[in-house]
C-alpha cells in the first residue's frame, strides 16, 4: 500500500543533467509505467525511487513520509523503503540456488526458518517454479530465471514493486505470456508497481498509467488509451503507436470558433470548437500538423462521400490478421491499417474516409496538442 510522490527531482552524472525537475505522483495500487526511448532517464528515475541513486535536488515522499530530502542530504537506505526491484539482467546470484536467492532477504531480516520456508515456497509456487528450488540460476532458462527474479522480489511482500525492463531479455512469445502474468500479479498482490520499459506495447497493455519521458523530462502522465488518443505533443504522438501515427502538414486558423486546417495537398478539414484545447487562441494563421492514427482511416475503392480524399496505393503489407496499406496523397504518405486481408495493386486509385473528430491537431511551432481526438 504505497503512494509515492516525486518532487523537483534533479539528477546529474558529472555534468550530464539526466533528470530534469521530475514531478510525479504514483497513487496507491497504480501500475505506473515509465516509458521512453533509451537514455531518456526512466531507469534513473526508478533507481532514484529505489534508493540506489541519490538525486542532487528534490524530495520523495512515500505515504507522506519523507524518504528523500536532497537539500538536507537525507536518503533513506533502500532496504528501509519497503520496496523491491527486479533488474533487467535479473541479477540472480549465480553461486546460490533458487531457494537461497529467494530466501536471502528474509534471512537478512532474521525471519524464522519455518517462516522463510513457507514464504519462499509460496513465492515460488506463485511463479510456478517450485520444482526448481534446488537448482542454480545457470541451470534455468531465461524465462525461468525471470520468474526467480520476480519471486525474489515478491517474497518479502513489498508494498512497492519496481521493474526495470524485466521482459527485454525474453523472446517474443515468452514476453507476451509474462505480460499477462505480471498484470495478474498486480491485481492479486495489490501492490503499487513502477515499471520501466521502452516497449510501448508493454506499456499500453499492462499499465494503469504511463509516464512518458524524453531526454530527462517527464512529458506526459496519462492512462494508456488517453496517451494513445491524445498525446500531449508531437514527440509523444510519434513515439506511441505501431504503425506510427500519420502526420499531415498544413496551415490552420480559426473560423468563427472552429479550427480550419488546409493541408499541403489542398484538403480542408474543419474541427469543432468543443474539441479544442482550452485557452488555444491562435492569432491569425499558424503552421499546423494533423495527426491521424492508421486505424482511423477507412479505404474505399470508390468514392463514397464528397469529402473522401483520392489517393494512390504505394505498398501493401499483409500480416495475416491485418493489412498495412501505404498510400500517397499528393506528396504525403499515409499509412492505413485494415483488419483482415485485403488486396490492392500498386498504383491503384483509392478513396480515404477521414473523420475530423478522430484526428489530433498540433501546433507545429510549440509542438503541443491543440485539438483532442474523440474516439468511441
Amino acid at each position: 500500500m504505497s503512494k509515492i510522490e516525486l518532487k523537483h527531482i534533479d539528477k546529474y552524472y558529472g555534468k550530464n543533467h539526466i533528470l530534469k525537475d521530475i514531478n510525479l505522483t504514483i497513487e496507491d495500487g497504480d501500475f505506473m509505467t515509465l516509458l521512453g526511448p533509451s537514455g531518456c532517464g526512466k531507469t534513473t528515475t526508478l533507481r532514484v525511487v529505489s534508493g540506489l541513486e541519490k538525486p542532487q535536488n528534490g524530495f520523495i515522499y512515500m505515504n507522506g513520509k519523507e524518504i528523500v530530502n536532497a537539500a538536507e542530504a537525507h536518503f533513506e537506505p533502500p532496504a528501509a523503503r519497503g520496496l523491491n526491484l527486479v533488474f533487467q539482467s535479473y541479477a540472480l546470484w549465480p553461486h546460490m540456488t533458487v531457494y537461497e536467492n529467494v530466501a536471502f532477504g528474509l534471512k537478512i531480516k532474521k525471519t524464522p526458518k519455518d517462516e522463510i520456508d513457507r514464504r519462499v515456497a509460496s513465492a515460488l509456487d506463485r511463479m510456478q517454479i517450485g520444482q526448481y528450488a534446488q537448482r542454480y540460476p545457470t541451470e534455468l532458462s531465461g524465462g525461468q530465471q525471470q520468474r526467480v527474479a520476480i519471486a525474489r522480489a515478491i517474497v518479502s511482500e513489498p508494498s512497492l514493486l519496481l521493474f526495470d525492463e524485466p521482459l527485454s531479455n525474453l523472446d517474443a512469445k515468452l514476453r507476451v505470456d509474462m505480460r499477462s502474468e505480471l498484470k495478474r500479479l498486480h491485481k492479486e498482490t495489490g501492490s503499487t508497481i513502477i515499471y520501466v520499459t521502452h516497449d510501448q506495447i508493454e506499456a499500453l497493455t499492462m499499465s494503469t498509467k504511463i509516464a512518458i519521458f524524453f531526454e530527462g523530462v517527464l512529458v506526459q502522465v496519462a492512462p494508456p488509451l488517453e496517451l494513445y488518443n491524445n498525446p500531449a505533443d508531437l514527440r509523444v504522438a510519434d513515439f506511441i503507436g505501431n504503425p506510427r501515427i500519420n502526420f499531415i502538414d498544413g496551415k490552420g486558423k480559426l473560423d468563427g470558433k472552429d479550427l480550419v486546417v488546409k493541408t499541403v495537398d489542398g484538403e480542408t478539414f474543419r474541427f469543432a470548437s468543443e474539441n479544442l484545447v482550452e485557452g488555444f487562441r491562435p492569432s491569425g494563421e499558424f503552421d499546423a500538423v494533423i495527426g491521424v492514427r492508421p486505424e482511423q482511416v477507412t479505404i474505399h475503392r470508390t468514392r463514397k462521400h464528397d469529402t473522401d480524399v483520392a489517393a494512390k496505393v504505394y505498398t501493401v503489407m499483409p500480416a495475416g490478421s491485418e493489412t498495412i496499406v501505404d498510400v500517397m496523397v499528393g506528396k504525403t504518405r499515409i499509412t492505413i491499417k485494415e483488419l483482415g486481408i485485403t488486396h490492392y495493386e500498386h498504383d491503384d486509385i483509392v478513396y480515404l474516409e477521414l473523420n475530423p473528430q478522430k484526428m489530433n491537431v498540433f501546433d507545429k511551432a510549440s509542438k503541443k496538442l491543440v485539438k483532442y481526438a474523440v474516439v468511441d
Partner: protein
Amino acid sequence: MRKVTTENYSKSKRLKNQIKAVVTNPYNLIVLVAIILLAYLILLPLLDMITTSFTLSAKDARRIHGDVGQFTLYYWQRLLASNLSKSLLYIPLRNSLLIACCVSFFAILLGSVLAWLMVRTDLPFKGFFSTAVIIPYMIPSWCKSQAWITMFKNERIGGAMGFVQGVTGWAPPDWLAYGPIAIVIVLTLHYYAYAYLLVSAALNSINSELEEMGGVLGAGKATILRRITFPLVLPAMLSAVILTFSKSIGTFGVINFLGSKVNFSTLSSMLYSNSKSQNTQMAFAMAIIMIAIASITVFVNQQLIGKRKSYATIGGKGGRSTPISLGKHKPIITGILLIFFAVGVIMPLVILVAETFMLQEGNWSLSNMTLYYWIGDGSKKDIMEGLPGIFRNPSFLNALKNSLVLTFTTAIFGTIFGQTAGYICAKGRGKVHGGIVEQLVFIPYLVPSIAFGAIYLSMFSVSHGPIPSLYGTFALVVLVSVVKHLPFASRSGTSNMLQISGELEEAATIEGAGFFKRFISIVFPLAKGGFISGFMLIFVSIMKELDLIILIITPKTATLPYLAFQYQNGNSTQASNAVAVVMFSIVFLVYALANIFGDADLAKSMGG
C-alpha cells in the same frame, strides 16, 4: 499540500546527514585507509628518495667540507657532469638502453610471430607448443643465464669448460659466453613470453571475418596480414614493448651473471654496487633516472596507442576463427619451432640439471657423476669449502623455509591488498577516489625492481614514526614484495571485480544487506576463483624474485634465488644450479596446481 522549496531546509541537518552517510559506510573507510597506506608505502619512499639525492651524507660531508644533511647538488653533479660521469652513468646508461632496445625488438618479434602461428594458423601439435612456449616464462631469467653459462663458458673466464667445449672441444669466445650478446639472447628468450601472451590474447579477440572480408575483396594473405591483422594487434604489441623495455632496464640478475666477469655494467648493476657500498645518494640518483626512463616509455606508449587501445575488442569475441593454412611451409615452420624449443628451452634445462650431478665442472664423463651436491656430507674439504650437499646444508634448508614463508605471506597479503585495491578501482571507475587508487598502485610499476629495493632499504633502515627499524627483518622483505607486486595484483583484482555485475550487489542492497554482508555473501564467493589465481600468480612470481630483494636480504632472511646467486658468485656453480632446480620445481608444481584447481590466467600474471 506540503510547501516544497529549496530554501526551507536546515543546513546543520544537511551536514549531519552527510557526515553520517560517509562515516557509516565501511566502503569509505576502506578507501580512506587504502589511500593513506598507499601514499605512505609508495609516495613517501619516492619523495624520500628524491630528497635524499639532494642531501649531503655524513660520509661525504667531511670530504667536501659541508654540513651533514645540508642541501647539495654534489651527487647529481658527480653523476651527470664530472670526470667520473662517463663510467658512473653514461656508459652504463648506454648499455642499459642498448640492451632494452635490442631485447624489446627481438622479444616482440619472436613473441608476436609465435602468437600468430599459434592462434591464427593450422600449425600442428598446438597443444604441445602452447605449453612449451610459456615454460621460459616460469623459469626466472637468472636461471636461464646460469644455463647459458653452463652451456658456453670457457676455461679462460669461467674457470671450467662448459657443455659446448666439453663435447666439441671448441672453446666459445668471450663475446659469446659473456657480455651484451649473451644478455640480449637470454633476456629475449625470457621476455618474449609477454609479447606472446599479450598478442595472442589480442589475436584471439579478432573476429576472423574481418580477415575473411579482406580475402573477399581480393587481398592476398600477406596483404591481409599487413593491412588488417597487424594494425589490429599493434596496440597489444606496443604494450608488450613497454613491458619488456621497462623490465629489461630494471633487470639485474642476468647482467650480474653474464656481464660482471667482462666488466659489462648497466644502470641496474651500477645501482646495485653503489647501494652495496653505501653510496645511497648516488644509487638514488640513478634510480630516479631509471624511473624517469620508465615513465617516458609509458608516456610515449600512451601517446602512440591513444584511443586505439580498444581495437581488439571491436571485433568482439565469439566470432568464428578459421585458421590460415600454412600450406607447403608447414613442415618447415614446424621443424624450426621444434628445434627452437629443443635448443632454446629444453636443452638449457637438461644441462642445468645435469651439471648438478657433476663433481667437477665441465667434466662430462660418466665417472664424474655424483649426488654430492645434493646429499653430500661435506667430507670433501676442497669442494665448496667443505659445505655439505644442499639437502644437508642448514643454509639451504633455511633459505627453502624462508622462500616458502615469504611466498605464502606475500601471496596472502598481496592478494588481499590487490583484490581490495581492485575492488576500489572497479567500484570507483570514473570517480575521484577510484582514480587516485588506480594511479597510486600503478607507481611501483615504474620503479625498477632493484631501485625499489634500494629505496625500501634506506627508508625502513631507520625507525619511521610508529614503525621501528625494519633492517634485516623478514617483515621488510614481505613489505617490499607486496608493494612491488601491487600493480599486477590490483590489476588482476580489478578485472576480477569488474566481472561481478554491480547489479548483483545492488540486488543485495535492496534486500537490506550491509557492506560486509554483501562482501561476504556476494562479492567474495563470486570472486573466489580470481582470489585463488591471483594468489598463485603472486606466489610464483615471488618465488623466483631476485632483483627486488637482493639488496634487502641478509643471510638470516636469504631465499632460494638469493642463495643460488651467492653460490654462483662464490664459484659453486653446481650447488647454485641445484638450488635453482629445487626452486623452479616448486614453481612448476604450483603452476600445475594452479592450472588444475584454479582458472589461473597467465596473461594476468605479468609480475614476472
